[in-house]
């Protein structure tokens, strides 16, 4: 142990001097302890300020380290979720390709009534993704969704029944006008990412008709939305399907 804290007393009686730890002399003032009590033994150790500072530094370092571990773990989870979502979207696209080309729209659109195998028999526009949690407001609690350039439009149908026997328009019949909402594949759909509006049936005209039965090109957007570890997440796959065999088949 060094000289730190060791104080030697010396003097000529009236005024004493004390040798401090640096070797220099300093004069003792009033209240000198000489001859009354022994000099207090200096305590070696750390002050409370030093302890608090050291602890603070340690806590900050530990919290940074923990934060780093958490971030790494979260990044890994985010990557896993992204991989799952991308793979699910890609597999869904492969399933879509597996259908006969002109059945794709009717099988995967929002409309149940036009499913090729009968009402509600198609896979529909929503799909689940194993391993991902759907958003709270997800339709039917499903993460995945298939979209086409289609809009819901009002269709008015007029039917005449009864009266006039076998002669149509002979008068006396009942005319019924029904207005229904119908999903239609439209060339005038506005969506830049899907490349719309554009000609879908190959007649070089962008019109306002329903092309759900005569399309040659079918733009598709597949979206997967889920509740991720870092909040709501979303990926999209946009592509265009084409029927290159139709001319030969026809």
């Amino acid at each position, binding site marked *: *142990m060094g000289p730190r804290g060791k104080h030697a007393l010396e003097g000529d009686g009236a005024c004493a001097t004390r040798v401090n730890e640096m070797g220099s002399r300093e004069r003792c003032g009033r209240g000198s302890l000489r001859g009354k009590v022994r000099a207090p033994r200096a305590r070696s150790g750390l002050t409370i300020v030093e302890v608090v500072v050291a602890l603070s530094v340690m806590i900050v370092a530990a919290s940074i380290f923990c934060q780093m571990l958490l971030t790494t773990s979260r990044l890994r989870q985010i990557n896993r979720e992204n991989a799952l979502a991308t*793979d699910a979207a*890609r*597999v869904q696209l*492969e*399933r879509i*390709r*597996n259908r006969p080309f002109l059945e794709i729209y009717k099988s995967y659109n929002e409309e149940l009534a036009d499913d090729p195998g009968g009402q509600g028999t198609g896979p529909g526009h929503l799909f689940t993704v194993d391993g991902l949690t759907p958003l709270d407001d997800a339709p039917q609690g499903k993460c995945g969704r298939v979209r086409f350039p289609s809009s819901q439009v009002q269709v008015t149908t007029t039917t005449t029944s009864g009266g006039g026997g076998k002669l149509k328009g002979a008068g006396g019949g009942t005319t019924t006008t029904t207005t229904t909402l119908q999903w239609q594949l439209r060339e005038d759909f506005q969506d830049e990412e899907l490349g719309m509006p554009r000609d879908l049936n190959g007649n070089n005209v962008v019109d306002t008709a329903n092309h759900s039965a005569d399309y040659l090109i079918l733009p598709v957007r597949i979206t997967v939305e889920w509740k991720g570890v870092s909040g709501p997440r979303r990926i999209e796959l946009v592509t265009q399907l084409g029927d290159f065999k139709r001319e030969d088949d026809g």
Partner: protein
Amino acid sequence: MSTLRRAGFTLFEVMIALALIGLVVTKVAMVMEEARRAHEQESVSMALEDQALELIDKIAYALYGADAETLDPIMAPPFPTSKVNFHVSLGVEDGLPVWGDPEVIGLTEDGRQLFWGQNVGEGDERMVVWANSVSAMLQDELMNGIDDNGNELADELGLTFVMDQRSVTIRLTLERMHDDGKKVQATKETTVTCRN
């Protein structure tokens, strides 16, 4: 009269200090060992996942160019197959498609090796083993005649193909034994639609 003061620790203090240090060091060593083992397992698991992903992509790309009508055998759920024969389109000549030599992807007889072959059984036969760590059965499946893992297939092997019209669903489980005897498995699944 001054007394001689001895600086140092008593035996009791030293014993307590040593005991505490021993406890702390043991605990730290246990934590480190646990972390090391977890890291190693994670590394093995990740490597296996990567290998499974790479393999399933390789199989998928091989089948993309195949003619759906040449797929053999055609197996629909709940009957999978662990081997598929196919022909790949090489292009078009004079308006007609040109087909490549017959190819096959499947498991060897011992069920542990995944191979790709071309012209199998002929003079110019080519065979390449793509992996030799294929699991005997698909993950969570047992050889008991029922569907244990809920994928609508019964008793499927480590590599299975299921056909649906022009699409093929491929499932693959790889496994590796860890140093401590634990079995690590990685399973991947994908669906491809033959483009030809």
